[in-house]
């Protein structure tokens, strides 16, 4: 498995409806990972317009990820204890090899996302 790379972007906690309507901008492609109904991590985003005056908007540096092809995903899924639906796109969260992680499953590509503090453990366990 290739090594984890740090992710940068914006993390926002806001009213769910406001997040649904948020407008993200950045210098390149943006991938919005909806961690929770009221929380999103927009990879690659540098600014956001969100209609919630009390929204918490913070630059985010705390996540790392690796992009997996189908073979890589199969190897990771052997260490996944939770149910992975077949629908795409899909974000699933739980423990991968005992480490809290997320899988962003898109057509033909999967992003394995982990908080960087756990990255070393995850890499070691999947090696």
């Amino acid at each position, binding site marked *: 498995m290739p090594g984890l790379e740090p992710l940068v972007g914006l993390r926002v906690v806001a009213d769910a409806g406001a997040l649904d309507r948020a407008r993200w901008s950045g210098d390149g492609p943006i991938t919005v990972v909806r961690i929770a109904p009221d929380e999103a991590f927009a990879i690659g985003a540098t600014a956001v317009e969100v209609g919630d005056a009390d929204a918490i908007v913070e630059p985010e*540096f705390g996540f790392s990820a690796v992009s997996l092809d189908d073979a890589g995903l199969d190897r990771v899924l052997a260490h996944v204890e939770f149910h992975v639906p077949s629908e795409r796109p899909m974000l699933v969260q739980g423990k991968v090899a005992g480490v809290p992680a997320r899988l962003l499953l898109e057509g033909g590509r999967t992003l394995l996302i982990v908080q960087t503090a756990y990255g070393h453990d995850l890499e070691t366990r999947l090696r």
Partner: protein
Amino acid sequence: MTDAIRVDGADLAFEAGDSVAIAIVRSGAWPTAGGTLCLAGDCGNCLVEADGVAYVRSCQVAARAGLDVRRHPAANKPVLPASSDYEPDIAVQRQEVDVAVIGSGQAGRRAAARAEAAGRRVAVLDATDGHEAVGLYPGPAVVARGADGMLHLAGHEVVVATGTAELHPVVPGNRLAGLLTKRAAQRLVDAGVNLGRVVTVGPELVRFEGDEAGHVQAVVMRDNATGAEATMECDTVVVDLGLTPRDLLARMTSGAAVSTAGPVGDAHQLPPPASDPEAVLCGCMGTTVADLQVAWDAGYTNIELLKRASWAGLGPCQGGACLPHLRAFIISRTGVMPAPFTARPAARQITLAEAAADTTIDAFRQTPLHEEHLALGATMDRFGGWWRPWHYGDAVAEYHAVRERVSLGDVSTLGKLVVSGPDVVEALERLYPCHVADIKPGRSRYALLLNERGHVMDDGMILRESETRFVLTFTSGGAANAEMWLRDWIETWGLRVHVMDRTMSLAAINVTGPLAKELLARAGLIDPPRYLGHAHADVAGIPCHVMRLSFTGEASFELHHPIDRSVELWRALTDLGADLGIAPHGLQALFGLRLEKGHVIVGMDTELDTTPRRLGMDWAVRMEKPSFIGRASLERTARLAQTRRWVGFKMDGVAPVEGSPIWSDGDIVGNVTGSWMSPILDKALVLGWQKRLPFTDTVEIDGRSAVVTPTPFYDPEGVRARA
């Protein structure tokens, strides 16, 4: 004859299709010292060590050339293997289905067909098909062993269709060799094994008689009509006492999602209660009827308690043989049918490697400074869910760096939440026992976090950033729980508050010591916040949230910053402070520093029912507030006498080991929660509990006198922290 297995070091021929047990019986021997064989995996009477794995049912292991079999000793259990380098790679296959059916007999097949007809995904597990169910767990989930490894099967529903087992005899002589159940005898006959002179007995059975070698010689039966006993000589006795549910797996868990199908779920007649005190009721544990009576007479009349008190059912077969007899024993004394006792995985002997396959220990987080610590020679240890530097080679030198110069500590592990919203003050006022509304932006306050019982859950800082936005910090180990606590309450109250966890997004370096301000000035922070203030500012060109507080007792500035700039900040501060004598400090020094200040570490000093009063921290609770979590309990307990207190002690000599008992008048009255040989006070300092009244001012620790001493031990006015 085709090939040979090794049994106790000698070759033993077997025939195709033989199990190890059948091969041994075919040779004229017995797999164990004795006991009725069922050859169906239900009892523990054929256990052997197979290729180094003990407690294996030999009736369930196919004989194959070269298999090394060692029979268990007649007395005592075999020891577990001593090798520590046996690490086979056991594969785990995970599967999720709608219905998992255990057992492929008639009932199992029917259950599977019904589910499939309803369009449900079905998996059928049966040892004969290569998957031997070894455990059934809540969920429900089934763990099975196959030739290629373990199968972890999650089913929305589990159907146990394992059929019936045969009743074992509980009469004198039932530990002899040469006894078979009816089905076992048929298997042996089918395999062409010569059983010699065979006598088949039913309920008329009275006892078995054997020779000096422990093999059955005769069986004694009673004519129910006349009461006359008759003895018949034989080489083999076949016992035909009836059937009982094969319910070991079904007894492992319960709930709507687990059901039985077929005879395993049927009511079966219990055997007559065993009456002869010498008869062994549980062959696995050697429990006799007399043993059972002793436990019964001692008051253990509940089936679960009787099991534990008598050991009947605690062995490898978990009641497969003895449970019906145990239930018959109870019903004969109470007239009430007890439910079967529970069972636990594993139903078959699995190795530790199989049990642990693909399971993982807890993950421990690394701060972004992990490699810096290692490069500095740190001894790392796990603490509060993180890898942290315990020391860098000399904790006392690190201590002096803090007390006399300037030092860096990695406090990235602290919990950090941002909370924001129109109801945020209301939420925090309810959550914390201190005042929150009067904290001005740019200021902070130390706070305890209490549960409804008024017990201390955690502690940390409340830092106000604006009218509607705060930063909250928590202990490293308690942060995750505190976050859940906050979120739960905010949702329960329906308050408009957003919560963002920044614990792993922000690192933090504590710059502490009398020269801390000087170092920060060199890093560009000319006007740092005053005590308990905080501000956003660049330090060495890196954006930081600077928090002025103190855990060490010296002037301290926590620099919270993005984790991707942490190494850069650490190195810049280290370079800038080189001529100031800067050195990093680890946890060992930090614990000593805090101990001199008498600061509590929640989780280390506290217990599950520790109140602020017991800690001497009533000052952190504002009872004039109309309400906060825990207030009602504190109000009630305040009227009770204080029976425990957490205090400081001073003593001569070396510091006692943490956890040491605290003695008074020959009794243990408490324990040490923290200890440190203070270099600056030249005394052993202790924090610990007194839990017995009357509290005495002098106690004994480690055989030496210790005197209760007010805390802080060091700089009680807090001048240095505010400097």
